[in-house]
């Protein structure tokens, strides 16, 4: 066991604690960025002028009428930018564009004494546009060969040989929609300039360092001129990894130009219209199976809908390709990836970061092919699991594959799956218009940023003379409980009661050069850094103590008077990982997180409406740092995944009418998240036992993203329930999201007894094979030519 993962007896880690801010949350005392506005005098409010066109050249911008509106103080335009007019990390996101690239793209921003004044000012700004042709849908982009960025390939073996030798070959197309983050707190920034010209931006950002860098870049300042603080976020889910930067830069620009604090908070409609979402994907695939249903080969071409700029689309695509295998051994693999360029919001990180989309492809393949193979999907999935010694298509040996099997067997037992499936068969035989189904699906998710350099973190730990402890670290709190875990790590490392430790908000002037709070790895990374800082202090204190066993307060006091340093900067970097994105090979992940879910649904054949009757989950979080927090991540991630796969339905106007390119589900009234009514009637979650993870802080594992993909069980159960309206052996193509309407049409097709859209035999529908001369991913596709991006 490594020093990092060894856990002392009676540790603060491992205790089930409520969120460290829970008492503030429930009383309304917890502050979020926009709450600070009411504690800041003389604030100006910013409102955007948004493009009504998906693609157009701005031919005239006249702000004079806006400036005449009472209360309007200034209009920010490209001419005001002292530095670089760009808010991205790849120079493809002009902050004040000459060519607008999507409906909602902000042309300029109006500052007013009140939000009402700014809004009225924005209405008064005159903009002339010369509309340009726009590509809206992913299929349009594929047809027009409108792509951006690199086109990575993951290959192993000889897929032609693998397919030729297969007993069964199937081919098809799988499409899946994106997802709106719908963090309850929309994007918000509040910028001030102090007497020395230091720019201070409070921002709802998952990546304060990158927000700092982009603010500095736009203002033409060095990074040390800009401080970014994030108190906490009202949810992030990846949506605040890259998207906050431009908004922070606008607020900062306004503050610099006016000398007054500037607040920029997006309305929900602006947030949904202007900011990126989970990528929708299109996948063409051919899959070979042997007589026993074992996968022999898989070829797939995945095209993601990147939107108008590259943003994080390349690393999202890389992670998607690295997760097409999910938990399954596939000897011969050929995966192509490409990012479509469309005139929509720039799609971005979202919990899972391409992993869910990649895994959905193979789960869709298995779900559709199982009936054609005549093999029970539960058995088909189980039969294809990785076993010890096998490697992923990108060359990383899969460690602990037995854990997914253990979780599977536990779910089968505790979920009483066999008994319930017999009952379901009897129920279905007795009910013509209502069908039930129970599906079981696995998750294997790689932990670490694909891009090796991001796997580092810093922390600052102060011990004050009275023995109290204050910690800072580079991660941000968005509800995932990172701060709770860091408090537990610090208390455990120092051997002090939890009450001795406080945590201060995340700031770039406390811990510099941080990575995004992303990739589920923030507890691993920042926990390592906090522990490292604590251990530096402890080693000094041990010398002072010299075996006397002094009480903590006495020891600290004595150390101070002995002129011993009582604070430390901690650092951590993940060891043993490497990745070459140009050839898509390496050992990018420190470890894999595993989980299994079994879900039972009931579908009404008249409407396609459904409910989830019961869900059983066993999930691997290693030795949990904080079981209540981890349970919350598993449940919350699962429900969010169910939302993506069933309910949340992003619709863009793809018509040729005047609304073309408009997001038609741009509000909570038209874009529906799961509500309490979607909670399964029964939800049982267990954390996998005997799951110590060596080499990770106190034996724990990351938990933020993997549970999202447990939701595949619900989608597969819906597929099987829809199929149950048809004869045995019906293969059902289920749209994603599987809304009641989608389930209804799937059931209708099952009733008409045709197998859907799966082609059997060779050559089948051969996936596009992008131009072999297409560029690979940039060696640092996650990396800006300045600054960094999460991934």
């Amino acid at each position, binding site marked *: 066991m490594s020093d990092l993962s060894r856990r002392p007896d009676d540790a603060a880690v491992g205790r089930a604690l409520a969120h460290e801010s829970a008492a503030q949350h*429930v*009383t309304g*005392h917890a502050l979020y960025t926009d709450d600070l506005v009411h504690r800041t005098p003389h604030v100006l409010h910013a409102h955007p002028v948004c493009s009504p066109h998906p693609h157009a050249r701005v031919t005239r911008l006249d702000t004079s009428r806006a400036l005449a509106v009472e209360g309007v103080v200034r209009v920010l335009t490209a001419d005001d930018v002292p530095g670089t007019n760009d808010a991205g990390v790849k120079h493809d996101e002009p902050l004040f564009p000459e060519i607008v690239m999507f409906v909602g793209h902000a042309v300029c921003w109006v500052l007013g004494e009140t939000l009402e004044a700014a809004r009225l000012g924005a209405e008064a700004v005159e903009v002339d546009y010369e509309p340009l042709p726009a590509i809206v849908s992913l299929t349009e982009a594929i047809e027009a060969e409108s792509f951006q960025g690199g086109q990575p390939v993951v290959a192993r073996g000889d897929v032609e040989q693998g397919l030729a030798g297969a007993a069964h070959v199937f081919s098809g197309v799988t499409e899946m929609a994106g997802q709106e983050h719908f*963090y*309850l707190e929309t994007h918000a920034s509040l910028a001030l300039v102090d007497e020395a010209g230091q720019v201070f931006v409070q921002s709802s950002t998952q990546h304060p360092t990158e927000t700092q860098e982009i603010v500095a870049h736009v203002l033409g300042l060095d990074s040390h001129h800009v401080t970014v603080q994030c108190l906490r976020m009202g949810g992030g889910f990846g949506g605040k990894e890259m998207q906050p930067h431009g908004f922070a830069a606008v607020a900062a620009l306004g503050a610099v130009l006016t000398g007054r604090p500037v607040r920029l908070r997006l309305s929900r*409609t602006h947030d949904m219209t202007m900011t990126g979402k989970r990528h929708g994907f299109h996948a063409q695939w051919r899959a070979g199976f042997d007589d026993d249903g074992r996968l022999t080969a898989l070829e797939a071409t995945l095209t993601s809908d990147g939107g108008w700029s590259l943003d994080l689309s390349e690393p999202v695509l890389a992670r998607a390709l690295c997760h097409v295998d999910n938990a399954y051994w596939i000897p011969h693999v050929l995966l192509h990836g490409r990012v479509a360029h469309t005139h929509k919001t720039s799609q971005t990180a979202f919990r899972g970061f391409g992993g869910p989309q990649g895994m959905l492809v193979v789960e869709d393949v298995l779900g559709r092919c199982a009936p054609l193979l005549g093999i029970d999907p539960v058995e088909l999935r189980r039969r294809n699991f990785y076993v010890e010694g096998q490697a992923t298509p990108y060359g990383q040996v899969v460690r602990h594959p037995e854990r997914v099997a253990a979780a599977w067997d536990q779910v089968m037992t505790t979920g009483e799956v066999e008994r319930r499936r017999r009952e379901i068969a009897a129920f279905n035989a007795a009910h013509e218009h209502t069908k039930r189904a129970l599906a079981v699906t696995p998750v294997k998710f790689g932990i670490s940023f694909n891009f090796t350099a991001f796997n580092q973190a810093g922390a600052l730990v102060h011990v004050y003379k009275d023995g109290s402890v204050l910690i800072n670290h580079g991660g941000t709190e968005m509800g995932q409980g990172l701060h709770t875990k860091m408090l537990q790590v610090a208390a455990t490392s120092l051997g002090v009661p939890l009450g001795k430790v406080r945590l201060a908000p995340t700031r770039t002037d406390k811990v510099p050069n941080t990575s995004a709070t992303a990739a589920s790895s923030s507890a691993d990374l920042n926990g390592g850094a906090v522990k490292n800082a604590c251990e530096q202090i402890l080693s000094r204190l041990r010398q002072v103590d010299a075996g006397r066993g002094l009480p903590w307060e006495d020891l600290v006091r004595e150390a101070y008077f002995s002129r011993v340093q009582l604070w430390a900067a901690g650092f951590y970097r993940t060891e043993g990982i490497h990745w070459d994105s140009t050839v898509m090979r390496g050992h990018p992940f420190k470890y894999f997180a595993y989980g299994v879910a079994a879900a039972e649904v009931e579908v009404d054949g008249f409407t396609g409406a459904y409910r989830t009757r019961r869900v059983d989950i066993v999930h691997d979080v290693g030795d949990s740092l904080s079981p209540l927090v981890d349970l919350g991540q598993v449940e919350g991630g699962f429900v969010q995944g169910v939302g993506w796969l069933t309910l949340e339905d992003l619709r863009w106007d793809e018509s040729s009418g005047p609304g073309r390119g408009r997001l038609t589900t741009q509000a909570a*009234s038209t874009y529906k998240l799961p509500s*309490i009514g979607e909670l399964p009637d029964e939800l049982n979650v267990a954390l996998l036992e005997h799951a110590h993870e060596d080499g990770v802080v106190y034996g724990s594992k990351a938990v933020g993203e993997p549970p999202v993909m447990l939701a595949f069980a619900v989608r597969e159960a819906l597929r099987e329930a829809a199929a149950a309206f048809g004869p045995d052996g019906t293969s059902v193509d289920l749209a994603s999201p599987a809304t009641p309407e989608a389930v209804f049409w799937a059931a209708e097709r099952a009733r008409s007894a045709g197998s859907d859209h799966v082609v059997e035999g060779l050559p089948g529908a051969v996936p596009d094979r992008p131009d072999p001369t297409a560029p690979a991913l940039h060696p640092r596709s996650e990396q800006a030519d300045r600054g960094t991006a999460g991934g």
Partner: protein
Amino acid sequence: MRAPGTPARAEGRTVAEPQITVNGQPRPLAGVPAHTNALDFVRGLGLTGAKEGCAEGECGACAVLVARPDGDGSRWAPVNACLVPALALDGQEVVTAEGLGGPDDLHPVQTGLAEAGGSQCGYCTPGFVCSMAAEYYRPDRTPGPDGFDVHAIGGNLCRCTGYRPIRDAACALGSPSPADPLAGRQDRPAPPPAPTRVDGFARPADLAEALALLAEHPDATVLAGSTDWGVEANLRGRRAAYVVAVDRLPELRDLTTGADGVEIGAALTLSEVEAALGDDVPLLAQVWPQFASRLIRNGATIGGNVATASPIGDLAPALLALDARLVLASAAGDREVALAGFFTGYRETVLRPAELVRAVRVPTPLAAHTTFRKIAKRRFDDISSVAVAVALDVVDGTVARARIGLGGVAATPVRALATEAALEGRPWDLDTVEAASAVLAGEGTPIDDQRASAAYRSAMLGNALKAWWDQAWQGGGSA
């Protein structure tokens, strides 16, 4: 039937400065514009627990408690503060999450939610706390898992937890202690409506004054629960030239049962109508749980819901199936129109300038058999793709009378007249159901939009009667 509370007229405050009592402290409304909503108002006081999540009453992050009339006493009713103009709460008592308890002095609801892991990012949490507290204080609630109506928090969205810990915390709540001041507050009447009269906003004392104001201000916006207008104001920037608040007019708040029907005052909230009617009108009892959320039903009024003439509202199809009539009041007196003749086009009605919906009349005897079928993406608190309300009388096995109201399939709520004709006089059997279903599938002019395809809408029309037959009638059952 229990009549909802009708408070005494406001008296003696005609010149008082408008104010709201927030967490026990009077807070002046001086200078607050008519478009400022209650959420922005309380946040401006530094009470930033209530949050804006959507600004259209869909997420509940802005929920606050308002003392509302309830018989001789009052009830803490949670509402979406983002939708209500602050001035509409003049004279009222509001409690926010901060007013329930502080970090060192947690309210039992707050303790339960915190300890259960019911907060992650915490942004939605103060709103959940308010919705949960209202249910906690519901006088007829029994403690324990079955006593807590989970639908009470159906209008609050959480993106982090997946709801299980919130549900568990809610279901574990005990009863308020006898010393709980907020429980005790419910024993006393709610504050009377204040006769607010400031620039651009007026709350008349009675119907006559309201009608006079409307005559005086032809461009006035008539405001009741503001659940529709608030969305227009917040999302589309609409501003009223003049607001006349009618939600507390005494003439619009009676519910009476007579020999020929039930008359429901237009300004009764849907929650009040729901409580007062109980199961007396079974079709409406089916509608309530599927109609928006408790937060919305605490604000929205029955008259407002009808008068906004939304083609996708859920109440109009049911009222059409009930053959409801509207009493319209103007300075010239009352007139009565059939709801079926009320809607003239997309969000247009026969209402004349300076005329109000005073009451909704549901004639009796009610049809013996009714069903309400709502098709939406989400099971609860979603807007209908299609709504079908059916009321049938079956005499000796023959359909004597059929009324079918439809929502979501035309520019207005409509009656399915051809289907009604295909049912009346026919034997009520599977053959008739199938024949009528084919007719019903062709009713209206459904469109493709973000909620559903036209084909799905038509298919849902075509399946509505079949599903009802299958679920309630087949095998000799009776709905």
